[in-house]
């Protein structure tokens, strides 16, 4: 006797399989999510029309709501790709769930996180992080949420999606926010005059057709290179490998 008469969405095996397989990924790009979705429809022989991904996910989220988890959509900070991750909304259970890591490993992660949030560039060098280790007992730890770029650590899309709320609560003074979307900002560009910051993809969209970009706050010239807006169609056409794409982005502060 399931709670079938939910006023929220209804789960079918198509949704369940999607959810199960989604959980095997830490984070999923939009294109991969669409592929996963159509796979799930195929398995259960649904001659029914495949829902639009957003609606499909919205349906699942309405059921997940009571479990305090959500399939959250975000955008990668470096090149604006849409991503999806299953995130925990109940901050109270964060520490309880982390039974995978030892106390000192968690402590290191928190300290490294603090370094990253505090930093100007959104990156903390590995040297600085390693120096933290002296303050703890135990070995250095690697965590999927920390992404390495040329010897520096920052937070990857999934970590930001999952921990945005936590970060805002823990470091309300150090936290940086994007002037356009008001979301948490780890990496981005900043105005040299008034100091406001923007995500790279937000910059791309805001200045898209503007040949002479100015700061939206103080109207000074915007000194940085304007990145391109992420275009999924272009993605599919070119066979550019992931690694070379990532290096095209320039971070400037």
């Amino acid at each position: 006797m399931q709670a079938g008469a939910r006023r929220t969405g209804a789960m079918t095996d198509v949704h369940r399989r999607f959810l199960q397989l989604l959980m095997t990924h830490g984070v999923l790009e939009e294109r991969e999510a669409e592929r996963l979705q159509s796979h799930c429809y195929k398995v259960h022989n649904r001659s029914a029309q495949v829902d639009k991904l957003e609606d499909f996910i919205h349906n699942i989220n309405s059921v997940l709501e009571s479990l305090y988890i959500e399939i959250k959509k975000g955008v990668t900070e470096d090149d604006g790709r849409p991503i999806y991750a299953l995130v925990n909304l109940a901050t109270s259970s964060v520490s309880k769930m982390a039974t995978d890591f030892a106390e000192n490993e968690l402590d290191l992660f928190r300290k490294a996180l603090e370094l990253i949030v505090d930093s100007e560039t959104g990156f903390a060098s590995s040297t600085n992080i390693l120096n933290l280790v002296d303050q703890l007992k135990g070995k250095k730890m690697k965590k999927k949420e920390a992404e390495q770029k040329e010897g520096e650590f920052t937070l990857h899309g999934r970590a930001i999606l999952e921990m945005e709320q936590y970060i805002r609560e823990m470091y309300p003074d150090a936290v940086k926010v994007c002037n356009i979307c008001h979301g948490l900002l780890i990496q981005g560009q900043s105005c040299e005059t008034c100091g406001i910051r923007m995500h790279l993809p937000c910059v791309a969209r805001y200045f898209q057709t503007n040949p002479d970009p100015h700061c939206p706050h103080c109207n000074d010239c915007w000194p940085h290179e304007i990145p391109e807006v992420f275009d999924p169609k272009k993605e599919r056409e070119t066979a550019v490998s992931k690694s070379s794409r990532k290096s095209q982005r320039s971070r400037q502060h």
Partner: protein
Amino acid sequence: MSQRPRGRGRPSFQAEHRDEDRGADPEAPSTSRAAGGASQGARRSQAAPAPGPRTQKQLELKVAELVQFLLIKDQKKIPIKRLDIVKHVMGDYRDIFPDLLKLAAERLQYVFGYKLVELEPKSNTYILINTLEPVEEDAEVRGDQGTPTTGLLMIVLGLIFMKGNSVKETEVWDFLRRLGVYPTKRHLVFGDPKKLITEDFVRQRYLEYRRIPHTDPVDYELQWGPRTSLETSKMKVLKFVAKVHNQDPKDWPAQYCEALAEEEGRARPGPSAAAPSS
């Protein structure tokens, strides 16, 4: 904040100790949460000292924590002990543990398609069984590689079944040797096969590993563990073996009969069916 039960037309979840009708849907429409003022509903008793009346929201959150805990613990494929659940998740709510567990089980089934099962009756340990049939193409859209060790497990399970449900460890190695798997040699895919078979799979309850008394040199016997019986079936394993040999399961009449008998035994609903809610 009214103390009267809201007129929602069904028994308030928080009114009682969950000892009855599961028909009440505790995950009420989000209006109750969005309304900010928590829908307190009826309080348990007027003089409410410790541990205090629990709001619907608190109970909902507790069930959510429990569901997450079970999902994460099951990932490692180690049976989840009731003691751990009570220790890490329940806290003050341990008095209503059975009800919360039942709710969590229902959520796991409805939302994820996982069934919470007790490994053996009265063992107070639990595992999650996938009620969705795994499909070959799943492997292409998975985020992890699945576990390569499953292949080795299937081979050992097959061997055990084909040999009459019990096999000596020495026989296992004689067989695996032919596939290039040795107890003492590191394997490219499986790592340490000896540890995998005699420790990891045993800890995960896929296999049972028992010493055979009075053997010299010491020998052990391997059988199916309780998790295997829950997660798969003799027929499925027989079909796997048949596929490997490019033959038909019926080519092994004795095993085929045994597998069939097991299927029929399962198909017949027993007197104590799955927990009838309410």
